[in-house]
């Protein structure tokens, strides 16, 4: 693969986990719940995936268990945040603390630094999409990825439809934007908020699974390395709109891919490449809202 197409391929590769978190997390965002536990949920997903992969080679089981565990975490979050009206930031931080703690407790117990499922060979999880792979330039970039990536890409479309074309999506947006309207019409805010959070959890599961299992067959504690927070940032930048938010996720993917692919030539300074996506995002945000408020004469928009 030549450098350019490699960079683009890696862009997709690095975007995947963030993209999944974004598309899952934006439901909670729209429902007015700040879910900073994406990070923890993703880590849980990546842990369980490899952990189960050590017991069985049944991929279905591996996916299932990762999804289940994250669903449970999601439900806990939802119960505390929605039903118990707990402080979402505390809950989120707590989960982000708890998951790695439990993981390292188990690692400690097993007496290993990290989990490696030797039977996993990432190549076997990549597959080409019949038609797409033959598209001249796009083919090699979009094709030949693991399942998680395709789920992510499809989710962009799915999320858009669900959010704007189904009752669930509509109500989710309502309870976030004007809870009073929801209650005054007897829309059960709690139910929809819970589901919104749950979707985030499930997507994080796939994200984590992609990170640890599909890519490496390895789990190391803290391997999510803040991707969950990046996802939140992306969601906020995209105002929770699926396509926009996905684009922001893509920016990160691109910058990350650039950083790594160019570092071979750039040397140690390449360490600083990693900050490009963040600065880029902030710049975009600033320009965006600077444009939005260009004829703002109001002094009270805080």
């Amino acid at each position, binding site marked *: 693969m030549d450098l350019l197409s490699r960079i683009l391929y890696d862009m997709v590769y690095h975007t995947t986990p963030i993209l999944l978190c974004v598309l899952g997390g934006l439901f909670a965002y729209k429902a007015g719940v700040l879910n900073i536990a994406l990070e923890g949920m993703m880590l849980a997903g990546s842990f369980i995936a490899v952990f189960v992969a050590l017991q069985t080679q049944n991929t279905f089981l591996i996916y299932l268990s990762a999804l289940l565990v994250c669903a449970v975490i999601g439900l806990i979050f939802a119960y505390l945040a929605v039903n*118990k009206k*707990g402080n979402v930031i505390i*809950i989120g931080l707590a989960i982000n603390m708890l998951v790695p703690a439990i993981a*390292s*407790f188990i690692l400690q117990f097993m007496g290993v630094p990290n989990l490696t499922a030797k039977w996993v060979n990432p190549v076997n999880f990549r597959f080409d999409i019949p038609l797409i792979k033959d598209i001249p330039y796009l083919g090699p970039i979009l094709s030949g990825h693991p399942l998680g990536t395709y789920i992510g890409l499809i989710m962009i479309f799915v999320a858009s439809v669900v959010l704007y074309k189904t009752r669930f999506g509509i109500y989710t947006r309502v309870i976030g934007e004007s809870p009073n309207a929801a209650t005054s019409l007897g829309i059960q805010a709690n139910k929809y908020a819970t589901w919104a959070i749950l979707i985030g959890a499930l997507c994080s599961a796939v994200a984590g699974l992609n990170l640890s299992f599909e890519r490496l067959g390895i789990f190391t504690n803290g391997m999510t390395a803040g991707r969950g*927070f990046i996802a939140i940032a992306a969601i906020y930048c995209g105002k929770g709109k699926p396509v926009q938010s996905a684009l922001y996720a893509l920016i990160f993917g691109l910058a990350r891919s650039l950083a790594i692919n160019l570092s071979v030539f750039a040397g140690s*300074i390449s*360490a600083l490449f990693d900050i490009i996506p963040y600065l880029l995002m902030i710049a975009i945000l600033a320009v965006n809202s600077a444009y939005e408020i260009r004829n703002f004469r109001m002094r009270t928009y805080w």
Partner: protein
Amino acid sequence: MKSNKTLINLLNSVLPVLLALLIGAILILAIGENPFEAYGIMFGKSLFTLRGLTNTLHAAGPLLLTGAAIAITFRAGLFNMGVEGQLLIGGFMAGLVGAYLHISNPFLHKAVAFAVGAAAGVLFALIPALLRAYFRVDEMVVTLTLNYVMMTILEYLSSGPFRDQGAGYVTTPTIDQSAMFTRFGSTRLTPFFILALLVFGILWYLNAKTEFGYKIEAIGKNPEFSEATGLRVRRSIIMLILVSGAISGFAGAGHMMSQEYKYTLSFSGVTGLGWDGMLVSLLGSHSPLGIVISSIFYSALKTGADNINMYTSIPKEIVAVIQGIIILFLSIRFLNERFGLLEKLSKKKGEKNGPAL
């Protein structure tokens, strides 16, 4: 009524801890260890021995400050998540001052380091502050992302330009003795803790007794009202974020000069003092007294973890688990203002002789 409220608040913070400890006990039993011994050591050696207590207070110092830094912004409705980054840059700069500026006068040396650290915090906070105030950019996103930017930059600086070449791992040179806080006797406690208390006290006073506090409350609860009644919201927002940045930078500098003495990639610990501070502040529901208590409680947990793996064969990870569970439970109120049952009571008696409260 009032006393009742405080009782409930107390219960609301004690119950979760007990519950979490219970779960922890089960875990410890499960791996065939003795919970009582574990807890005995965990709390005994972190609160009820001089060495332990002083260790705990020592660790509480930075948390007090980061907690306060979070509180003043959160209460003003500003979701400032940048304390971690501001603390890091503060600590880093203080570290440079400590290592490269050789000021023989220990007092002066520390003063300069603090000044530089706080200033660094302020400058770094300036970005989200201005973006928020003049461009309406969501401060949460900006601060959240800038944390990573700062971590990356500092990692580069500490492993490149400012690296201690002798060292076998990434670290800046150790700061001069003149920049190190000397401990009280054999304890780890240093004058920095007193300093932290002092700063905290001043903030508390300003908050309770001056327009500073009024601004925070008003802007937090109704910015439009605040603007209409002449509080100059834009200015105030900038001011608050910068103050928060200053405190965070100050905390970082203190941590550098009283604990770390050099900038390493694990400068602010596993969870990060900034994030710890956010928890401390949230758990203390942003109230001064609450923050004091929760910061001490939280650092007791930390030193407790240390003792567990210092004196027992129980993996320290289990303490982290308990820690997480406690915080998880603390996030919700187990009891509402009037206990659940009293609520029902008042419903029943309601018709006749008014509610029970």
